[in-house]
């Protein structure tokens, strides 16, 4: 049942021009960054060859592009997730789901997996850029895989937060702005308290960015994975509670 809802969600996304626009714009920007990074690498390639244990093409080209992809998608993903519940509430199509024999958890999971389908398409397309380097050289597949895993987890977190925000309102634009605000705040939360020892450390642990940096560098640690999975579970749980409360409170 979850997959039926997810399939409908994904189909509707691709039937709207918005998803295609987001896809196109994101790819255009990332392609530009990728080429710029590649250009830099070509310039210094000769000097790098002289160094012992020099950083490879994966470190200089692929890691920064995947790192920047998260920032670009921080801006773009609220636009993809904003309609999930808000649009249905505005168009009054929610009764279809509420009066069907499906639970609230199934509805939320279905919507989440639907939008994650879109996010995975995005990750797949982004992965094609580094893979194109195979035409002219080698790649560190371990680091690439870690980076893509990190990107998938970050997008999973974005989507969960976006779904929750969308469940709060009937205005998709409000959901987009709120999602963007929340994500940006969690992204930069470690900027404050850097001077004070205990606080700075605690805030750094909360930051979406810090955990992502590790993965992009190729370090896959349980702590980072757990952070993202907890983040996702928290917001999906909140979305379920929110929709249940709506049915109780009216």
């Amino acid at each position, binding site marked *: 049942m979850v997959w039926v809802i997810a399939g409908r969600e994904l189909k509707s996304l691709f039937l709207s021009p918005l998803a295609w626009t987001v896809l196109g714009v994101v790819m255009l920007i990332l392609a530009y960054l990728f080429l710029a990074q590649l250009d830099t690498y070509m310039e210094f390639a000769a000097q790098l060859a002289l160094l012992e244990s020099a950083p490879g093409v994966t470190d200089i080209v692929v890691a920064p592009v995947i790192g920047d992809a998260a920032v670009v998608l921080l801006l773009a993903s609220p636009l993809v997730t904003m309609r999930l519940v808000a649009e249905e509430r505005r*168009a009054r199509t929610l009764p279809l789901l509420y009066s069907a024999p499906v639970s609230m958890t199934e509805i939320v999971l279905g919507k989440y997996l639907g939008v994650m389908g879109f996010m995975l398409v995005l990750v797949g397309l982004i992965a094609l850029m580094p893979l194109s380097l195979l035409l002219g050289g080698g790649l560190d597949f371990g680091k690439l895989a870690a980076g893509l895993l990190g990107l998938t987890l970050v997008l999973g977190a974005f989507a969960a937060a976006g779904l929750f925000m969308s469940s709060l309102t009937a205005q998709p634009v409000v959901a987009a702005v709120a999602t963007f605000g929340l994500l940006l705040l969690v992204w930069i939360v470690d900027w404050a308290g850097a001077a004070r020892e205990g606080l700075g450390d605690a805030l750094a642990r909360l930051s979406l960015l810090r955990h992502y940096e590790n993965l992009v560098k190729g370090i896959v640690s349980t702590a980072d994975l757990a952070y993202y999975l907890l983040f996702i579970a928290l917001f999906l749980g909140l979305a379920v509670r929110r929709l249940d409360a709506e049915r109780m409170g009216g």
Partner: protein
Amino acid sequence: MEREVLLRAEGLYRWYGERCAVADLSLELARGEVLGLLGPNGAGKTTTLHMLTGNLAPGAGRVTVAGHDLLDDPRAAKAAIGYLPEQPPLYRELTVGEYLRYCARLNRIPRAEVPAAVRRAMARCGLEGMERRLIGNLSKGYQQRVGIAQAIIHNPAVVVLDEPTVGLDPIQIREIRELVRELGREHAVILSTHILPEVQMVCSRVEIIHQGRIVWSAALDELERELAADALVVGLGHPPAPEALAAVPGVTAVEPLGAGRFRLRHAPGASPAEAVAEAAVRGGWGLVELTPERRTLEQVFVELTTGEAAQEKEAA
């Protein structure tokens, strides 16, 4: 025929903040019945239907659908309900076929049976040949039909329709009413409306809701008796004194209406029309009009919904 109760609501309450939208509402619906839920705007019709279909949790009371409690066993209960809200829940970007297939899957129809279910629902709602049309491009009437198709696609025991004929043209209204009557033969149907003749045309039972309570409830044949004539209106060219009219056998009261017209009250079902005509001929009163006067559902409705408001005003 044994009465198979498919939907039972007991003591439903619903508050929005301080305002009580539905109070102590109970109803019962059996297979083969079409129940008309009647009420002025804001009477609590839609809130009631939302509670019966699991879109709103009742503040108190319980709903049982085909033997399954809506709170304890929502999956089984909801599988037995088809609901068309006031605004049909349609995804405008899908085609009719895509949408109905999605609804069929959502209602847990096995994958292999989906095409047959979609075909059947489309045929019943007169949607043949529309499968590949985009829902957003359909006219209001056809969108309404898609909404009904969605509600009956899983062959539910109970079909709940919230104002299904609003905004349609007269021909579409007739077709939808015909469809509702047909649904009522195999399913149990609840229909909310504020169009009074519609109730008399399609429903087998009527409940009038006013300020969140059921204030009147009758089966349609009882209703016919209730509404049976209990007055005659006569128009006379040379009217006699009212006492002369009151003396006609069977007449219990006389109300002058002016310009030679009178309303003659009589016991229900015992019309003195013949006696009045004879008396008029004998007395040379110049009979020009003799009409049995029926109470209409509209009168009952107005009496119930405005009478109570007046009483409350007095109490206040």
